[in-house]
């Protein structure tokens, strides 16, 4: 994207019919760390890559519980994400107060999209710089939506946003046909594998990712670190039953099949074997 004379205000169209500020906002989403979502008929799983800036700091919260039946994972400007999560929580709780019933996720995402659209049509505002993967339930079952800064929203079977999300998307594209009928456990496993794809070489450990689940009869909750690590260990022992991937990265994971806690870390976060002090 180049600097040009039509990109100063969000309210200025380019001759080609584009709003550059909105597109730049979508770039901000691509710079954030990856967030992944997938759903079956009855469950939705959200996963995200959570890397702390340094060993000394905690990592950013990227998954928020909005209500018992809705949760959201964000990528991009986390501050914007936090504000929008607060809005979503507020809407859910107000609806529940008036109707004693959970707000259908389909309606929440429309309200969220309309809120984002406002920022694309006011000269004194800027678009929200965050993409949201909204997971939740309504009358017709489990749903996964993606809300963009442009004010658009789409429903997905599975999706990934943020940096290096293409690797995850490629994996999901191969497997999504089965997701509708997947069990909860298989769905979580697929989410973890997709997260690993986004890590591109780095070892998948529970200290770098966060997983959350919501389903029919199961309120939205974030899985705790031990559970996640156990899940990772379970399927890593089985190793990849998937065919050799197009990306080069899985080969490096093959190096140490038996020792989970080996020092074979490829990634940048070297040295935190047992999880740094300020994890969840």
């Amino acid at each position, binding site marked *: 994207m180049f600097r040009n004379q039509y990109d100063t205000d969000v309210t200025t169209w380019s001759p080609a019919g584009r709003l550059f500020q909105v597109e730049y906002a979508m770039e901000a989403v691509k710079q954030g760390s990856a967030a992944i979502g997938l759903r079956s008929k009855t469950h939705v799983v959200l996963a995200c890559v959570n890397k702390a800036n340094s060993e000394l700091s905690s990592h950013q919260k990227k998954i928020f519980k909005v209500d018992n039946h809705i949760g959201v994972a964000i990528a991009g400007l986390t501050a914007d994400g936090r504000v929008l999560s607060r809005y979503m929580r507020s809407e859910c709780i107000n609806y529940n*107060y*008036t*109707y*004693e*019933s959970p707000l*259908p996720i*389909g*309606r929440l995402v*429309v309200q969220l999209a309309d809120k984002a659209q406002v920022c694309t049509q006011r000269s004194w505002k800027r678009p929200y710089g965050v993409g949201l993967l909204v997971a939740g339930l*309504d*009358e*017709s079952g489990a749903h996964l939506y993606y809300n963009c800064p442009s004010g658009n929203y789409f429903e997905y079977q599975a999706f990934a946003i943020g940096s290096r999300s293409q690797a995850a998307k490629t994996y999901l594209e191969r497997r999504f046909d089965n997701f509708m009928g997947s069990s909860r456990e298989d769905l979580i496993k697929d989410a973890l594998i997709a997260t690993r794809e986004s890590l591109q070489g780095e070892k998948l450990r529970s200290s770098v990712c966060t997983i959350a689940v919501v389903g029919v009869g199961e309120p939205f909750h974030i899985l705790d670190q031990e559970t996640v690590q156990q899940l990772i260990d379970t399927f890593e022992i089985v190793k990849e039953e998937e065919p050799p991937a197009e990306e080069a990265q899985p080969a490096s994971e093959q190096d140490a099949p038996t020792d989970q806690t080996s020092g074979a870390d490829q990634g940048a976060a070297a040295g935190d074997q047992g999880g740094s002090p300020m994890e969840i």
Partner: protein
Amino acid sequence: MDGVAESQRTLYPYVTGSSVVAIKYKDGILMAADMGGSYGSTLRYKSVERIKPVGKHSLLGASGEISDFQEILRYLDELILYDNMWDDGNSLGPKEVHNYLTRVMYNRRNKFNPLWNALVLGGVKNGQKYLGMVNMIGINFEDNHVATGLGNHLARPILRDEWHENLTFEEGVKLLEKCMRVLLYRDRSAVNKIQISKITDEGVTVFPPFSLKTYWEFSAFKNPTVGAEGSW
């Protein structure tokens, strides 16, 4: 104290409907009310429909001020309209409508400008039956059988004894008729023109009005004051 100017607050009702009685039965909800609108002690209007369908899943019956009932119907009309405009496969069920009404009624009560009604909200959604009541001070609850006004005192004892799960439609109607008959004998603001409505998963049916057979040859009715010392 003043949500509205003194001259605009509801102080007392003018045209009122009497009791509404409703029960859950096998397939849904049955609701009965007479078609009278009293102007004080005059039984002035004799074709007032006091039970109306709301959306796809609910029935609303009202006693109390008829004009406030009409106002409530307008609120609900707008509510259902906006619900339909989402066009997304989700719809407000009877539980949601009941809670919405509770909020409205309680809110008005807090502003000292009540909607002078006792409402019965019944419906079925996805096989789940719901029957609730809310009145002008915001008291609300749900139960297997509800009634408003004098119905609480005359009809509910009968229902407590004779209601059971999975009444058939015929049994339900007979039970309601029994209740309405007692109300007709004993409630001075009842008129003998009853309307019964039912709601099931398939939809709403409002039956044409009918009259109850009454028997006035009871010896106690013929000589009501026999044994009452000092009466005439």
